[in-house]
């Protein structure tokens, strides 16, 4: 999503991407390390959450406390997350501290302390986060939905599996770090105020010596069940619905995005109008595009009290299916302007820009400019979206519910 793109590839293959922003005094950066949930060995679900914590518990010549204090004294706003393909670690900060921050992250990636006693603490916290999902049914239903929808292991839980976390050892986790922190497949992205030349020199010095690892392709298995219910004596039934669509690299990607926007872009979109405004079935209702490199879906969430759960699910599925019947000209204009405007609004934040650069490069092998995306959205029409929908009819819906009552999936 760049207006001006800086790009430099280190000799070992590590990609450095940058996008300067004139109006800001901050900078945001992120490393995407190929150790996401789907890239982990069988039986280690949750190791990603442990790793994201453990590598920050001391690195280089600093112990846990010294490293934490050093990061804090730079005023960093740290972000760390586990995705399907990647672990992302990074921060937003005042631009003047970037060099110091990168130096610390170099230590964290290349020389993490990985002490055994610290492993136990990191593992305990990761296990706690899995148990806490029971108290957050909305997040739980969407994690389970991805697990059921994507062919294994693409949808594997990014939070973890409690039994597998219990049997995870420090030794096994170290092995994963050694084999998955492969710099030849690592993407670094920065956006905001920075000096690209001096940044590249620093990155070369820190990371270029590390050589490429072996390539480990992921074997994609089969999908899990069509309907899953998890009983919970709560106030609402939390419903997740997901159906297949095209991946980000597909030529129909923008038709798919506009179709999702017609369904659930703004408050005038169909799901909000039919489910909430006309019928008062839900407070929270919405669908969004969810794309991985090798598979993608449209994921919908709705939360409603038990007596309304069946009607809510029926209306949601009917709205998916009704898309093929026709879309109005004004409706599509609203969907398109919504997509374009959200693109520009998000481009003002250095963090979301850095994130966008990295994921574009991973998913597409290139970074799209803001103008290119705008043009592609512009080019979609009622006809192109309808043709896409007719050629890609929604066949199967994966449904997950968490709550006191089951639904019938027809």
């Amino acid at each position: 999503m760049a207006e001006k793109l800086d790009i430099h590839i280190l000799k070992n293959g590590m990609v450095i991407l940058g996008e300067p922003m004139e109006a800001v005094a901050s900078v945001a950066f992120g490393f995407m390390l190929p150790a996401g949930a789907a890239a982990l060995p069988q039986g280690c679900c949750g190791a990603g959450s442990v790793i994201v914590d453990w590598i920050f518990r001391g690195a280089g010549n600093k112990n846990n406390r010294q490293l934490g204090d050093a990061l804090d004294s730079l005023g960093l706003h740290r972000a760390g997350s586990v995705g399907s393909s990647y672990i992302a670690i990074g921060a937003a900060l005042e631009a003047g501290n970037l060099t110091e921050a990168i130096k610390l992250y170099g230590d964290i990636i290349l020389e993490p302390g990985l002490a055994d006693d610290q492993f136990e603490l990191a593992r305990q916290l990761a296990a706690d986060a899995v148990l806490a999902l029971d108290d957050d049914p909305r997040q739980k239903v969407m994690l389970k939905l991805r697990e059921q929808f994507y062919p294994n292991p693409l949808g594997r839980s990014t939070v973890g599996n409690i039994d597998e976390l219990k049997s995870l050892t420090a030794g096994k986790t170290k092995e994963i770090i050694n084999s998955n922190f492969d710099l030849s497949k690592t993407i670094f992205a920065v956006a905001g105020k920075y000096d690209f030349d001096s940044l590249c020199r620093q990155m070369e010095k820190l990371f270029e010596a590390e050589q490429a690892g072996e390539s480990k392709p992921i074997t994609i298995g089969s999908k899990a069940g069509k309907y899953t219910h998890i009983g919970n004596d709560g106030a609402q039934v939390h419903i997740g619905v997901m159906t297949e669509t095209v991946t980000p690299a597909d030529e129909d990607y923008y038709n798919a995005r506009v179709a999702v926007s017609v369904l659930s872009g703004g408050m005038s979109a169909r799901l909000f109008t039919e489910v909430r405004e006309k019928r008062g079935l839900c407070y929270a209702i919405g669908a969004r595009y969810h794309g991985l490199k090798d598979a993608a879906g449209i994921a919908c969430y709705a939360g409603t009290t038990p007596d309304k759960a069946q009607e809510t699910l029926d209306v949601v599925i009917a709205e998916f299916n009704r898309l093929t019947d026709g879309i109005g000209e004004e409706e599509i204009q609203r969907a398109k302007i919504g997509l374009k405007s959200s693109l520009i609004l998000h481009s003002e934040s250095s963090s979301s820009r850095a994130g966008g650069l990295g994921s574009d490069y991973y998913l597409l092998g290139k970074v799209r400019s803001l103008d290119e995306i705008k043009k592609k959205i512009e080019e979609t029409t009622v006809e192109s979206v309808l043709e896409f929908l007719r050629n890609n009819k929604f066949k199967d819906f994966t449904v997950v519910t968490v709550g006191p009552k089951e639904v019938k999936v027809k």
Partner: protein
Amino acid sequence: MMEFKKELLSNGLCIIGEVNKAAKSAAVGFFVKTGSRDETEQINGVSHFLEHMLFKGTEKRSAIEVNEAFDRTGADFNAFTNEENTVFYSAVLPEYLVEVTGLWIELMRPALRDEDFNIEKNVIKEEIAMYKDLPSFDVMERCKTLHFDGHPCGNSVLGTEQSVENLTAEQMRAYFAGRYAPNNMVLACAGNFDWQRLCDIARQQCAKWQAQDAPRQLQPCQGSKKKKRIDKANLSREHICLFSPAVSAQDPRRFAASLLGFIVGDDVGSRFFWELVDKALAETATMQFGPMDGTGVFCSYIRCSSENVSKVLDIVKDVFQNLSDNSISDEELTKAKNKLLSALVIKNELPMGRLVDLGFNWTYLQQYRTVTDDIDAIKAITINDVHSLIEQFRPGQFTQLSIGPAQSR
């Protein structure tokens, strides 16, 4: 680069703007000084319900037409209600700013139709049910009520299923008439926009609104310091919330209070973090300063396993005890300042972030403050400022409420 503008209409509506021609977007919104603390028990939940009803249309537009009109501009728009403010906000591309402002102005004089009211009541009840399933939210609401113990700031924002069920459209219309007076609201705008056009449209369309008294009770509150635990069979973790009194949104010591929040309870690197989270005794432990009109709170949230509860609470006691012993070091204060300063800078780089600070500074202080004013105020805080705040407010003496699975006896 930033230019502040202000105009006061004769009916008391204040229009403020901060123009930044370098921005790619603009943000505009209404800050209405009304919330659950301005409600009586009979109409508890009306402020929040009313916020929903403003989107249900005017004499000229239906709810669906309102949504369509916003979506035609691509605006990212929404609203929120808390104890003392109802804020309607939007981020938008500069070319649509005037249109979106016009829409907000229209919505500030809603139709409040019975049939819309009845359908939306279901949505509100669903929202109440949704938050019941989120114990991290539920525990804060309940602890707030226990802390304020009869003080209006303890009123629930959403209301209860019962209070919402009993509420009538007539009661809502009366509440609206009393609270959405032009002198009780601010129209604010930040980013790349044309100030003159904004003022013209506001003058044309808002001048006929009638000013009137919209009083608020501002009695002080020291907090009940009560302790309570609630069993909830379907939960798996213990959710603990602590409230203690703090300085108000108008108090110059609010920056010291924010820094104290970072020192004790920032999500990483704080005292709670090192004593509880780093040691894996609690999964999360945070404390924040919550400034309010004429009062304020420190609010902590901790989540842990049932087995760790008593250990965690002992450590919390030690953390606060330690604070009272003048233990904050230069280095600790500097770290807190750096974190607060970078958060401030990053937030204010977006017109939406800027709008929030602009609007609230006017609501609470009737003052325009640049980002630099806030940066300077934060930099000037000394260790003594923080220590004297601790001495006066004693955050270790708190109201405590926890929700968790049934305890084995």
